[in-house]
């Protein structure tokens, strides 16, 4: 039955929403299109070419920064997800106990503190540690990234755990499985999609970070975002667009995967 009067409609809202989606994607689309420009300009179109992708590929600094970014993101995401998984198991499926609120607030704290303040704090701390230990490798960046990735990895894992009840674990325990066996053969396989989702979120968040990396990195430790930040001060060629495009495609692929992984439990319920 068609209704002539829809109670849900508000005049102009759909138009504004469409306008919003248009504005969200217009700059990104422009950026991607001009990465295929054959000319030097990032505003006047001169023809289609892959030359800027080639030039980025042959740019030693870009390649090094990309590898460094991926390395840091991979290690940091694994550390953060491992910590977040254990923490999620410790903070879900239980009645309230002393210290639970404390744990919640500590885990979520990195989301509340302004990034620039954390960056400054780590700059101060790590500059001391560097003097004491003499070590100035990628470890500082990895530790910093792992820490701020924990709350992001924690979210999907916790959500997944909360949708699982304890009956299967209890059944395993009744059948004389040790607590490790229960975890390994019952909890972990059920939790796996949540862990993967958390891993991917943490990876993307680490890959995207500019501010904390900019303050913590030592000389010659540019990641792709901090390299780009430095380049933006100069005259920009479509090479920047090409780098951005590749970066965008990578993030998009991971986020799409994440989207399907986190949809799965809903399907099971239906």
């Amino acid at each position, binding site marked *: 039955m068609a209704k002539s009067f829809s109670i849900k409609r508000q005049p102009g*809202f759909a138009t504004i929403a469409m306008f919003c989606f248009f504005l969200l994607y217009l700059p990104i689309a422009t950026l991607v299109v001009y990465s295929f420009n054959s000319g030097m300009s990032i505003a006047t179109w001169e023809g289609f070419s892959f030359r800027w992708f080639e030039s980025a590929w042959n740019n030693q600094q870009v390649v090094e920064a990309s590898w460094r970014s991926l390395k840091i993101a991979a290690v940091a995401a694994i550390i953060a997800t491992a910590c977040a998984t254990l923490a999620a198991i*410790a903070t879900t499926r239980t009645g309230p106990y002393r210290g639970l609120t404390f744990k919640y607030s500590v885990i979520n704290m990195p989301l509340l503190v*302004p*990034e620039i303040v954390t960056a400054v704090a780590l700059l101060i701390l790590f500059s001391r540690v560097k003097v004491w230990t003499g070590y100035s490798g990628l470890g500082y960046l990895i530790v910093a990234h792992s820490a*701020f990735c924990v709350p992001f990895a924690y979210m999907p894992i916790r959500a997944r755990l909360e949708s699982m009840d304890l009956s299967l674990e209890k059944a395993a325990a009744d059948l004389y499985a040790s607590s490790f066996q229960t975890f390994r053969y019952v909890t972990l396989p059920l939790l796996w999609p949540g862990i993967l989702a958390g891993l991917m979120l943490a990876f993307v968040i680490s890959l995207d970070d500019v501010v904390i990396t900019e303050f913590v990195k030592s000389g010659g430790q540019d990641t792709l975002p901090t390299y780009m930040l430095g380049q933006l001060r100069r005259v920009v060629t479509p090479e920047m667009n090409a780098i951005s495009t590749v970066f965008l495609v990578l993030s998009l692929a991971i986020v799409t995967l994440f989207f399907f992984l986190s949809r799965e439990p809903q399907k099971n319920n239906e």
Partner: protein
Amino acid sequence: MVSPQDVSEQRQKKEIRDRWFLSAPALILILAASVGPLVIVLLYSFLAPGNYGDVKWEFSTEGWFNVLFSRDIFDDTVSLADAHFLIFWRSVKLAFATTIFCLIFGFPTAYFIATRAPHNRSLWLFLITIPFWTNMLIRTFAIQEVIRSEGIINTLLLKIGIISAPIQMMFTDFAIMLGMTYVFLPLMVLPLYASLEKLDFRLVEAGYDLYASRFGVLWRIVIPLVKPGIIAGSILVFVPALSSYVVPRVLGGGKNLMVGNLIELQFGQGRNWPLGAALSVTLVIIVLFAMLYYVRNASKSGGSAHG
């Protein structure tokens, strides 16, 4: 003799101990490399500045003094630190304007998504979250390309002949606000959507039955009901906008600083670490007040929902 009660109590104690053990890695990591260092910042704000950056280990309130006042290098006269007030004021102003703009654009968008058929909603939401997960720097760069003097807007307007010289949009407060609105919009839409999705449209129908206009329904039924979402979204936008660093650095040039850039300067060229630390603590305090306001309001509206 051990009573069953003792056994269960003991088991409970062991479980809680295990749970502490399991959460220890995450807690230690965050306390060591994210939250703990804030204590060092607080400590540094009460030390004297070193000659070449860093600090001297002596107690001093000079850092805090410098947040509010500046001392003339030559004759030691004290005056209010106008530049700092200006930058704090600009940051608050821009963050506030950004929040309002995100609300104006975000609310209809969230409403639009929430009123789609359920199986379509996740696709629309996905479209909102994609830009959110793409690198913030890339999005800022994308905005820069659009509004530069040689950018797409100016090129287009020049071609049509509406303007004869490019409009200077880069390096203005407007550019910063536009960039922040663009970057933080998803943070507004997501909590608004979460609230709107739970909205009971029978109440809206009741409003229409009682001869309310479309605007009356929106203003007196929908908006009051989703107020928690509006507050949550506003805080989620306001806090990162206030402490924004990348957007003003790229789109504001060297002149239009915000607090984040002012803090960075103290650890770079200015090399007054205690002042930088004191400014950081000030920023955290402002953010904490915004959070407290949110928590108080959220609990208030939660209470009235039960009543």
